């Protein structure tokens, strides 16, 4: 009989893939708001997978930053642009064939790489726990310089966004 966490894994993995599919290729709706809502659900179920992998801090950050901040930004822009249903236009046959070939090819490459890989050791009882304390210690000891560079990057992004969305005054 499979353990309870394995059942949870299959539930969360199935939900993640299902919602991800509904986000990019919903057969019922072409509305970008629907896609955004399914992306939120994908991200929340992925946070469940993170918890199963003992990455507790990242699960919280995933929900706060992605499902909270990023998706609100998406919905805000959809509202600002007043986008309706995506228009249906005639599909470009060449693009369709090459696109599906690219996706299937990538899936085959990834699958073959997985099959060829040697099986790794199982997660031990003392595997790394990603709680806030452990992650903060490693972040501020080994990764202090990248962390500071990242804060500069955020500042630059903020200045850039303000400059981009400012009305041109002439």
């Amino acid at each position, binding site marked *: 009989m499979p353990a309870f966490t394995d059942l949870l894994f299959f539930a969360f993995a199935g939900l993640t893939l299902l919602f991800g599919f509904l986000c990019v290729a919903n057969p019922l709706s072409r509305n970008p708001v629907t896609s955004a809502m399914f992306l939120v659900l994908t991200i929340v179920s992925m946070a469940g997978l993170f918890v199963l992998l003992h990455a507790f801090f990242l699960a919280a950050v995933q929900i706060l930053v992605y499902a909270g901040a990023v998706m609100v930004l998406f919905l805000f822009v959809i509202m600002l642009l007043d986008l309706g249903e995506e228009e249906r236009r005639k599909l470009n046959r060449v693009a369709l064939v090459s696109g599906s070939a690219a996706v299937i090819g990538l899936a085959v490459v990834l*699958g073959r790489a997985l099959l060829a890989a040697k099986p790794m050791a199982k997660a031990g009882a003392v595997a*790394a726990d990603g709680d806030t304390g452990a992650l903060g210690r490693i972040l501020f000891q080994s990764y202090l310089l990248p962390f500071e560079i990242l804060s500069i990057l955020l500042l630059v992004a903020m200045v850039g966004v303000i400059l981009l*969305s400012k009305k041109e005054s002439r």
Partner: protein
Amino acid sequence: MQAGLNHYLIVSGLLFCLGLLGVIARRNLLVVYMGLELMLNAANLAFVAFSRFNDNLNGQVMVFFVITVAAAEVAVGLALIVALYRKRQTAHVEDLTSLKL
């Protein structure tokens, strides 16, 4: 059956393919962007899985950085889309063909 590293990597790979499908198949600029987010998330899942099964926290720090950079990228990208929409009144990828010969 026990959920091992391979299971997580399969989920991650499938999710990446779904994101790529969204980028290629959808015509709305914002939905294309959501496909990009999906691909970033798939990579994050692989990072966390490797970090867990190698007993090593560096992968999780990497994911933390990826999430931060993705947030900055989304902000800049959406500002670009809004600026583009102001100029061209469209968010449909097939209408943006100025680079076409």
